């Protein structure tokens, strides 16, 4: 499978979803990414990216986990698909192999 180009932000989101292991939804993903990168991101950006990734078939989702905290509304919980995992892995491999070619790091 060809790498169709995973944006940096998309990659971060995908990784966050992986880390959260089924608990990933708008806010938790936002929090996770913010925690690791140290930058502030907008909720809307997270949502839009999550959906884009789902459209690309890298994520799958289901509704669930309503809590009183959010006025008893359900959340959409995201999970990574096999394709997503492969793509992430591929992306990582590309980087890894390129890293190894960087002379300064030798």
């Amino acid at each position: 499978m060809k790498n169709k180009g995973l944006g940096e932000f998309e990659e971060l989101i995908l990784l966050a979803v992986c880390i959260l292991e089924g608990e990933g939804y708008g806010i938790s993903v936002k929090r996770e990414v913010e925690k690791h990168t140290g930058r502030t991101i907008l909720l809307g950006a997270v949502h839009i990216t999550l959906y884009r990734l789902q459209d690309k078939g890298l994520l799958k989702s289901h509704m669930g986990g309503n809590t009183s905290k959010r006025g008893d509304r359900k959340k959409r919980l995201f999970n990574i698909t096999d394709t997503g995992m492969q793509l992430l892995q591929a992306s990582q491999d590309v980087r890894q192999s390129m890293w190894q070619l960087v002379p300064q790091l030798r």
Partner: protein
Amino acid sequence: MSESKKNRSIKLANWLATKLIKDTFLEELIGDLDEIYEERKTTKGTTHALLMYWIDTIHLLLGFSSLIKFKTQNRNIIMIKYMLKIAWRNAIRQKQFTVLNLLGLTIGITVSLLLGTYVHHEINYDNFHVKKDRIYRINQPNIWGDWNEISPSTGPNVATALKEDAPDFEEVTRLLHMGTQIVRSQTDTGSFKLFEEAAFIIAEDNFLDVFTFDLLKGDKETALDQPMNMLLTQETAEKYFGYESPMGETIQVKQWDGKWKTYTVKGILANIPSQSHIQFDMLVSMDSYQENMDRDGWKWIWTAFSTYGLVKEGTDITSLTEKIQAIPPKWAPPTTKRIFNQTFEEFTAGNPWFLNLQPLSDIYLAEQPFYNQFGPVGNIAFVRLFTALGILVLLISCINFMNLSTAKSSTRGKEIGVRKVLGSGQKSLILQFIFESILYVGASTFVAFIIVYCSLDIFNNISEKELSITTYLSNPIFTGILLLFIVGLGIVAGSYPAFYLSSFRPIDTLKGKVSNGFKGKGLRNGLVIFQFTISITLIICTFFVQKQLSHTSTMDVGYVKENILQIHNIEQFGFDTEKLKTKLASNPKISAIGKSFGVPPNIWSGDRYKSDKPNSPVVQLRNIRTETDYLNLLGVEIIEGRNFDPKKSNDKYGVILNEKAMRLLGWDIKNRDDSPIGKKVSMASGDEDKFEVIGVVKDFNFNSVRNEIQPLIIINDLNDKVWDYGFGLSFMSMRINSESIDSALELQFLIEEVEGVLNEIDPTIPFTYSFLDQDFEKTFREEQRMSTVLNIFTLMGLIIACLGLFGLAAFSAEQRTKELGIRKVLGANISQIIMLFSSEFMKLVGISIIIASPIAFYFVDDWLNGFAYKTTINFWVFFLAACGALSIALLTIGYQSMVAALKNPVDSLKSE
């Protein structure tokens, strides 16, 4: 930021989201927003959270909404994009015009929206009843006074007679307002909580079959069918018991003899909608008052009941009304015979005892009857006034918009020329202008909505209503009208440049032939005159409203009404009243004290009296029971005879008349032989005891100064031979020694002192007080509220008109740059140019004044006719308004004329 405002803001954001985002996304998105909001609130504060909420919402809207279509490459969309761009550039190029134009229109739309919601609220009273189209209230003449006056209440047996004689009624139901009651509920610890309950109503068991008040708990069929059943509204339940469904709990109501009557809560009603003319806290079954209902003789003259009928479907109201006219002559005679010893014909004295059917939807705003025992009555005059005001202000701002738009567009001749040369068709030019114009109107409307949304709380405070705008937006008719308005005004305002300018040959416009040959000046001037006529009329009217209000509040009512403190519920003290009085009188801050049954301006009870002259007419007199001290305390002037004398035991059966009553009974103090002193008065109902007239007081005002002084008979409070009217409510009035009270705090202190004295004697009696002058003020409360609203909106209208004038002056200054430059070169000095420039506009304002004055005079005169005591229409007011309008106009255009006059002619002439 207040909690409620915050919630409203969030609601608005969510509402926006529901409209623009697909439902499938909604739940998770709003859920996320909600969650993160709470989190931010705790970490970074409410304001930050709220701000972020909006940012996130808008971000999500952009990402998920149907606006996404704009991102596609569609030819029409590209065109709209370009049109937007051109519109934007034009707006930026002439910032002043753009701002003036939008500001004027926004204010206008805001004002008319506010007034519109108010009017809509007022005309939709009682709309929530499911059977509203079939519910009628049965009114009859005021049999206790002016037979021409319509009274909203009838005797209890009107209902029974209707049930018997008119099968067209599916249901007939009665309500009886019990006045203020002392009520208590028992708390968990067994102690009692005491309340003064002003909205205590007796209802028949079919009440809920006729009216739609939601019964949240309890059984609709049996809720009111047993004695001692009681229904509470949620609010009341909360107030009395601290929780919302105290089913089966008991509430006790104090009786006139001091005993407590116990009711059981059988149902909880949803809170009464504010748009209901029937308002209550407690409803008790009519069967609980069986012994009162059984009092046979009173059944046709105990006119305290409101009777409502639910007619069967398809009933012809005209013929039904005709049919029921036969009811009073058929059923009432036994009552008149028994009580007054009069035949029906003698009792009515030839007046028809009619029954009319008033549709439920008409009740709130009807001109007659003008009161309602159960709740608010609207004022159709205000509804009309506000409708007119809203339309006028909107009209002024629309005219403004059109004026400025056309004026502005005439400078765009060159642009049109270039575009035409480059191949633009007339159609696309027309489209461009209309599009721009619609865009402006749309933007103003949008901003106006936001302003209304934010300022509605303030407006609600002033007008004491509960208006809301969001409900209207979901109403398709309203949205339709709104769109029609935006498009309509846009097309009208944009049509002049669209059709006129775009029709020129490009060569002419490019050569500059058309750009200055701007037509339509006559029309513009006409519109300015129209605007200012409206504004000046409003100013004059507003001024007189103020004048009338201050006139009535400072009017001499016949006694000093300031510094009188009145304690209510004195009847509850029974035998302790004298003790109370002595105790209070010892307070040095109180200079006089007296007890009375009823206090101004609320002396409403009355009866039929006659004198002992042969063939004396039976007259209707208001009555009040007082003791000697009360008349002294008020300080009313006794012009003949004397006040009651506590030392003379016979004075207990003496009465004092006011001048009006004396004349009505056929006496006159000017003529010695005709003096009423020593003569006798008795009640007209049969063989009653006769009372000696011992004095005559000068007429003093004991009701609102809105009305003429009514005839009054003052009865000694110890008189035990008259039936006690007015529910026997009594008051202890005190004149406060004003020298001993310097501050509000001291006054508060005195009130607490008085409360302490009362509590010492009987702590179970609720302490309620009022000030006489404030009670008087209250009778004009509605007028005062409305005059505030009127002031604000008149000011708005004036601001809009001035904005328009300012814009036109600026435009004219620009147009006449060269002319003024040449004048200066030829030797005109600055003051001459200012004069020349301003006089053009002042002429217009002058004409407006001439037109506005008679119009204003007509309306003011008409309005003042509704008052018994009216302020004079002074002509200096007109003069003042004229001067005011002129100087405001002068100020508005002064800046422009200064700029025009001070310009260096070299600058204005060199570019040719």
